[in-house]
């Protein structure tokens, strides 16, 4: 692909230095466009799925099946007045939504979407992902404090306590994945889940080597903690509508509120993509080989076009699995009531933390047995 790109530049007569610079920028542009598209679709999907689960129809007036509803919402929020109370700290008030939104954008660049399409390929990618996602807590506390409103302060404090408590089982569950894969590099973690359990006819499907099978308890713990990190029901006490009138984002209006709103959905997508990458095999297909290869192998003989097809299929598998996980998250939102603040804390410290340690033990034993069996 790189050679093709250089060839185009050569034909047009532009020096190769520009080709090198722009080649590295293309993945970032791709990631930014993906972010916008994903969030637009996700807001609509949540409203539609919630409506179907409650025997209603979701938005269906703006565009066919309501596709342009999010754009209408964004335009409405853009045109609103930007209200700031008299006694707020204006710098911090404006800075808080940016602190919440910016790290999530960076995490989008770390995820391997297909085999070759990863914007930032670091040796310690997994570590950086969780370091970045902890910065958003600072933004929420800033938002709560700088609003000069007692409700927002309560919301910000609760959110900080919740985020810190639920990060610990999260990290320990992720630690077990690092044990299984032997590396912290995200593309390598996905590649380590290929191959199946053995070489026989049925067991060489990829699905048997996904990380969910040895680390099932870790999957459950990670799933629950990721819902808590994103502040969704049943853990959405910081922004509970009936108790705190929307918590830390009570005083925000216009584009700043839109940033908070989009940050929540972007974070939800990122957490789902992480679940899929770490536990469900990322872009790998559950069968033993890619469908495009088996279907089109004898028809298309040009290797580059076959590669393009394989890449598109990998993207499709990633997106399908991610939206399945997002559907589970929305389904849980529709069913369960909210947890109280102290019950939330005791659930994290007394139940999830021991469970994640048990998971780590099981995974370590499993990995030891597998390494022994392979030598």
């Amino acid at each position, binding site marked *: 692909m790189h050679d093709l790109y250089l060839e185009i530049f050569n034909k047009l007569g532009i020096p190769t230095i520009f080709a090198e610079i722009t080649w590295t920028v293309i993945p970032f542009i791709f990631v930014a466009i993906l972010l916008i598209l994903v969030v637009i679709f996700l807001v609509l999907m949540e409203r539609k799925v*919630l409506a179907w*689960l*409650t*025997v*209603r129809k979701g938005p269906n007036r703006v565009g066919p099946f309501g596709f342009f509803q999010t754009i209408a919402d964004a335009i409405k929020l853009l045109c609103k007045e930007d209200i700031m109370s008299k*006694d707020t700290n204006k710098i911090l008030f404006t800075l808080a939504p940016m602190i919440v939104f910016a790290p999530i954008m960076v995490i989008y660049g770390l995820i391997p979407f297909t085999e070759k399409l990863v914007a930032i390929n670091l040796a310690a990618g997994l570590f950086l992902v969780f370091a970045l996602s902890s910065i958003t807590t600072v933004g929420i506390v800033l938002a709560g404090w700088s609003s000069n409103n*007692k*409700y927002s302060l*309560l919301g910000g404090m609760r959110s900080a306590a919740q985020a810190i408590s639920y990060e610990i089982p999260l990290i320990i569950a992720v630690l077990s994945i690092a044990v299984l894969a032997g590396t912290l590099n995200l593309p390598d973690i996905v590649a380590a889940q290929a191959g199946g359990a053995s070489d026989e006819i049925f067991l060489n499907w990829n699905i048997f080597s996904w990380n969910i099978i040895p680390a099932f308890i870790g999957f459950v713990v990670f799933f629950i903690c990721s819902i808590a990190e994103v502040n969704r*029901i*049943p853990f*959405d*006490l910081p922004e*509970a*509508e*009936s*108790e705190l*009138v929307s918590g830390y984002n009570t005083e925000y209006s216009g584009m700043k509120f839109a940033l908070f709103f989009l940050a929540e959905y972007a974070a939800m997508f990122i957490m789902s993509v992480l679940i899929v990458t770490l536990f469900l095999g990322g872009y790998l297909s559950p069968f033993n080989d890619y469908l495009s290869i088996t279907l089109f192998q004898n028809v298309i003989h040009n290797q580059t076009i076959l590669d393009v097809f394989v890449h598109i299929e990998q993207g499709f598998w990633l997106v399908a699995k991610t939206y399945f996980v997002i559907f589970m998250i929305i389904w849980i*939102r*529709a*069913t*369960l*009531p*909210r*947890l*109280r*603040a*102290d*019950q939330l804390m005791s659930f994290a410290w007394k139940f999830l933390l021991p469970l994640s340690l048990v998971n780590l033990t099981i995974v370590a034993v499993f990995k030891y047995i597998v390494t022994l069996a392979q030598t």
Partner: protein
Amino acid sequence: MPVKNYNKSELNKEMIINVGPQHPSTHGVLRLVMTLNGEVIKDTKPVIGYLHRGMEKLAESRNYFQYLPMVDRVDYLSSFFCSAAFCYAVESIAELKVPKRAEYIRLITMEFNRIASHLMWVASFLLDLGATTPMFYAFREREDIVKLFEDLTGQRMMYNFYTFGGVKKDLPEGWMTKALDLCKSMPKMFDEYEAIITKNPIFMERTKGVGVLSQEMAVDYAITGANIRASAIDFDLRKTNPYSVYNEIDFKTHLAQNGDSYDRYRVRIAEMRESVKIIEQALKQIPGGTPEKLKVKSVNCGCKNEDCEFCGFDAQLVGKKLNAAVFKPPAGEAVSMIEAPRGVITCYVLSDGTNKPVRVKWRTPSFSSVQVLPELIKGKNYSDLMPIFGSLDVVLPEVDR
């Protein structure tokens, strides 16, 4: 702006917060001035009066028939009960007898209204706790009941259907079949709510042991209705002082032992199921049967005998046809008590022989329930406000009138 010279002891001051009149969950416009110490509630002061419409003063300048549509609006979620309270009081002063068919129609409509009011309570209680779907399911059932009422009276709320001495119109054709079909399908819907909510571990954690109403406190604050039955006090006006034709129907009252929010929820769900059984019995026992049958049989019978089932007094709709402009009950006073969904509604009417009442006084159950809120919530977490307040079933038009 940063505060420069602050006193260290002032840092531990308590925070006074306003759960203001505009709030998504105070079930109306109620203001609670709360003193919080961190997350623990020290004191609460409810401030009422934001929905005061002067219902009792309005009665002094209107005659009885002009006041009757306004009575529905004392509590618009249980408007048949308020209407019944006023009608029974005036019928007691004017000594009007109500025929049995009218009493049965009143009973059926009152019990359907009880189910609709409890469904509204389920929807808002669970929405406060964070479960967003039972609200839509409850409103789907309520829509069926409200459509029945629209066929019967012409409006979906504020029915203006009872009159002094009976009801204004007969049941329309096909109404009884629709009502019976609805009674058959409703228990299945209640089973669905129970599957989603009743044994849900998060719901049980949130409501069990929270807001325990002891028996002494309940009797001291004059709390009635499902709130007191959840504290194991067997007080149901339909059994102790039966009005209407409740003594001819066979039903049970449901009690619970602990008196916490979870028990109040269980008692109301059980009351909904019991109301369905009451309606089915009443639909079978109504004198005269369906309106088509009544019309045909009364034409064929024509005996004009007082005790005849089809053309006697008990098959009428109104005891005595009154002239609205000149209705003057004799001087006297009367009190009537009705078991409404939230408690006991009492209506006191004083008349002096003219066509306008001198004084109408309403005693509504939510007024007492709001007064017990500061006691129940002292020393508890701020997040316990919603389960406790929601389970008391307080509706602001009743509090403020």
